[in-house]
């Protein structure tokens, strides 16, 4: 399940990718920052397209790193500061492929997933976030 409204459980993702053949495992977590009074971010998506796009991104990663196994989950709904909105786990026989596949997937996610965030602030105000290039 690529999209969820529940807390992301890294252990579940690790269990899906790790095996005795894969000696390198890499996890990326994106968590909600406490920027300028932000108390949480409300994530919404074009869910059907996001699922399709995630499938395509993972299939492309598999083609490029056939020995690696990569999974990802994106959380939707209101996510409080400090909790994760996205988790990616990549495991491969060696670390280079695990890091590369994980990095590739998060960069594609940023470019391609139809997901939007609205920042909620302590003073009750809300603001749609436009994409930016921070890495």
């Amino acid at each position: 399940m690529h999209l969820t409204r529940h807390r992301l459980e890294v252990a579940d993702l690790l269990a899906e990718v790790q095996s005795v053949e894969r000696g390198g495992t890499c996890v990326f977590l994106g968590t909600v920052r406490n920027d300028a009074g932000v108390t949480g971010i409300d994530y919404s998506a074009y869910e059907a397209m996001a699922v399709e796009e995630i499938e395509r991104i993972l299939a492309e990663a598999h083609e490029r790193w056939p020995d690696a196994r990569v999974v990802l989950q994106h959380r939707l709904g209101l996510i409080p500061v400090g909790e994760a909105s996205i988790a990616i786990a990549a495991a491969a026989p060696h670390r280079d492929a695990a890091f590369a596949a994980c990095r590739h997937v998060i960069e594609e996610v940023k470019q391609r997933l139809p997901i939007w965030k609205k920042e909620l602030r302590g003073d009750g105000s809300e603001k749609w976030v436009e994409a930016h290039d921070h890495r």
Partner: protein
Amino acid sequence: MGKVSVRFFARYAELAGCSLSAVNVQTPATVADVISRVREVFPGTQALPPRPLAALNQRQVKLDATVNEGDEVALLPPLSGG
């Protein structure tokens, strides 16, 4: 004339006042034609950028992509997932 489904998301849904609707256009049309029609039918969407990001049947496309009757065009605000 052909009927094309249109979807709006996030800030664009607020501007349109709805998230799912349909417009009639002369088909085959382009995504740009559909967007022009959307601007007429949903006055709030006149505030959309001149060339918004769009998806046709759940894939991102350029605005000159061909749209046929029964297709779905989604107008996507700048993506901010992750």
